[in-house]
């Protein structure tokens, strides 16, 4: 007779050793799992920390409060009274003397030149514009001469006015602390961030245009993709004959969902802007391009929702003499709506965060204020993250970029939260 069982297996020591080995193996596997989770968690935490710590600083701003003397000698030396002349003046130069005096820096001479440069770094283009607007404002352009139309800003030459200006790069400036102690510099909530628009001067950068732009873009996206997506789903689920053509369409809807978004950007730039001549960089084109991305999501979600509607509603309606369309519109579609809306919100949330295709169609760098219609050039919020950062690294720009990301993430969480809530509610009932 052949010995099948290895005699070792009957040995108690051997059995104990094997058990131990198996247990150790299990423990090792667990340890690896925990380590992998820890790494993933750490990376997420680092990302969130970087966004939040920078972003929160971008939501605060340092302001310099100074009394500015609008010196007529400097602004309009020949006493011409001409607003066009006054407009040429570099108004930031009115601020520096006050700060030099406060900091005991000589206003002239070689010795303090470096110190003066540091002080000047605190004041940006935006501050200069803010002071200029107090004296002279442009309200339009003369249609014939193309000269700017100028009006007085309300402040007269010779007045002394206390103004608050945004200070730049305060974290790395050696005078920040001293100015703060002297009462010239204080930190407060950055209201400009929510009420201002895209600007080259990070001290005056805001996201209102990007927010409104995103709203228009999503509205266009929704209007373009929701009806088309729902109708396509209804047709495919309820009326389409089962044949090769519908199978082919079905496969390609799923393929559409897998196409990298930048491809849609390129296509959109060509079709919508070049072929149809729509205005580039607008919410109209942006929304249409993004609707190509949301369309497959909506179709897939709507089909699943329609399929899950109990057949008994349809049957009951048909039994009463309703046509298939009537049964569809009066019962099937309304019952499927929560699921369809959930899918649509998820699609729109994806569109909200989409950036690459929008860069293609020119939504980057716009500084034309708040878009009043979908036909105005505008950034979107996701593009705003890019706009805020600008082309080279800057402390404040980085912070603002992160602040924009925070707003974007909050909106995304709200959208996805709504979708999750709707799904939860429809599952319960």
């Amino acid at each position, binding site marked *: 007779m052949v010995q099948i069982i290895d005699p070792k297996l009957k040995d108690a020591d051997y059995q104990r050793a094997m058990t131990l080995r198996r247990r150790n193996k299990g423990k090792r596997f667990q340890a690896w799992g925990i380590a992998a989770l820890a790494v993933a968690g750490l990376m997420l935490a680092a990302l969130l920390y970087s966004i939040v710590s920078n972003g929160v600083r971008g939501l605060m701003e340092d302001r310099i409060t100074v009394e500015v003397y609008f010196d007529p000698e400097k602004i309009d030396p020949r006493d011409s009274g001409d607003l066009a002349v006054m407009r040429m003046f570099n108004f930031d130069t009115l601020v520096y003397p006050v700060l030099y005096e406060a900091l005991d820096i000589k206003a002239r001479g070689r010795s303090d030149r470096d110190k003066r440069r540091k002080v000047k770094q605190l004041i940006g283009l935006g501050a200069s514009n803010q002071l200029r607007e107090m004296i002279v404002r442009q309200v339009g352009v003369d249609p014939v001469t193309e000269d700017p139309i100028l009006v007085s800003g309300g402040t007269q030459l010779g007045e002394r006015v206390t103004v608050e200006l945004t200070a730049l790069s305060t974290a790395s400036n050696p005078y920040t602390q001293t100015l703060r102690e002297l009462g010239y510099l204080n930190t407060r909530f950055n209201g400009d961030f929510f009420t201002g628009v895209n600007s080259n001067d990070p001290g005056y950068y805001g996201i209102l245009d990007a927010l409104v732009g995103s709203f228009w873009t999503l509205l266009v996206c929704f209007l373009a993709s929701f009806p088309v997506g729902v109708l396509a789903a209804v047709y495919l689920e309820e009326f389409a004959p089962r044949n090769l053509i519908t199978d082919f369409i079905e496969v390609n809807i799923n393929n559409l969902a897998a196409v990298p978004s930048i491809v849609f950007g390129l296509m959109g730039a060509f079709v919508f802007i070049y072929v149809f001549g729509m205005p580039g960089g607008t919410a109209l084109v942006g929304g249409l391009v993004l609707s190509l991305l949301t369309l497959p999501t909506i179709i897939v979600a709507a089909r699943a929702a329609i399929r899950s509607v109990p057949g*008994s*509603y349809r049957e*009951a*309606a*048909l*039994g*009463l*003499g309703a046509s*298939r369309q009537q049964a569809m519109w009066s019962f099937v579609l309304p019952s499927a709506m929560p699921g369809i809306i959930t899918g649509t919100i998820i699609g729109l949330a994806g569109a909200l965060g989409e950036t690459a295709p929008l860069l293609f169609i020119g939504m980057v760098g716009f500084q034309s204020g708040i878009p009043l219609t979908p036909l105005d050039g505008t950034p979107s919020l996701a593009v705003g993250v890019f706009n805020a950062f600008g082309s080279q690294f800057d402390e404040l720009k980085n912070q603002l970029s992160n602040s924009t990301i925070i707003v974007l993430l909050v909106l995304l969480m709200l959208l996805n939260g709504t979708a999750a809530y709707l799904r939860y509610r429809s599952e319960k009932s």
Partner: protein
Amino acid sequence: MSEDQVRMSCRNVNVAYSGNLAIKNVSMDIMSKKVTAFIGPSGCGKSTFLRALNRMNDTVDGCEVTGEITLDGNDIYAKDMDTVFLRQWVGMVFQKPNPFPKSIYENVAYGPRIHGLFRTKSELDDIVEQSLIGAGLWDEVKDRLRNPGTGLSGGQQQRLCIARAIAVNPEVILMDEPASALDPIATRKIEELIHKLAQNYTIVIVTHSMAQAQRVADKTAFFYAVPLTEQDNSNLIEFGDTKQIFDNPVDDRTRQYVEGAFG
């Protein structure tokens, strides 16, 4: 209208699903204002035949009906027959109560709405009230017509479905095991209701309860599943007065079935 007028007449009806016969060569007359019961073991084609009577099978892919079925002499499978009207004349109540996810009022009003059976709101109110009275549900729901129909009990839901069916003023009502999902008390109410409805409507009911067939039906048809033995050329084994089918069946299989030998 004479006592035993034929409302629906079926001649040599076959129904196949994707080529597989479920109903073979069935001929019968359904008498006006009588209750006709279909009995037989499950899978023998009772529902299939019932659904052929108002062309509900049209919605099933691959289902094919041959032979002739007439309603008051009109071929219901004729090319120019509009299923919208056919299903108004021949209504249906399903096995599982299936009220719409809408108010009680809207459940009943749906049929009159799609068929345009009223001109004013008060006419519609009237139809809804009469239908609910007809279904024996009015007293229970008259104070909560705006509540969802799905909030009613199972038996009430089924009576709501009956009210919904009679609201379009049909001539025939088809019922596919209308009480099989209900408790005995609710079942009793449905049976009493069927009795009452038979004064005004022609009723065809599928049931797997022998007792129920005996209680409600004037005529009973016994079906048996395809495949059949060589000598059978139809799966309608026996059709006659309920009393005769139960007390004095001609076919052995009928007797075995009504005696409960197989189910």
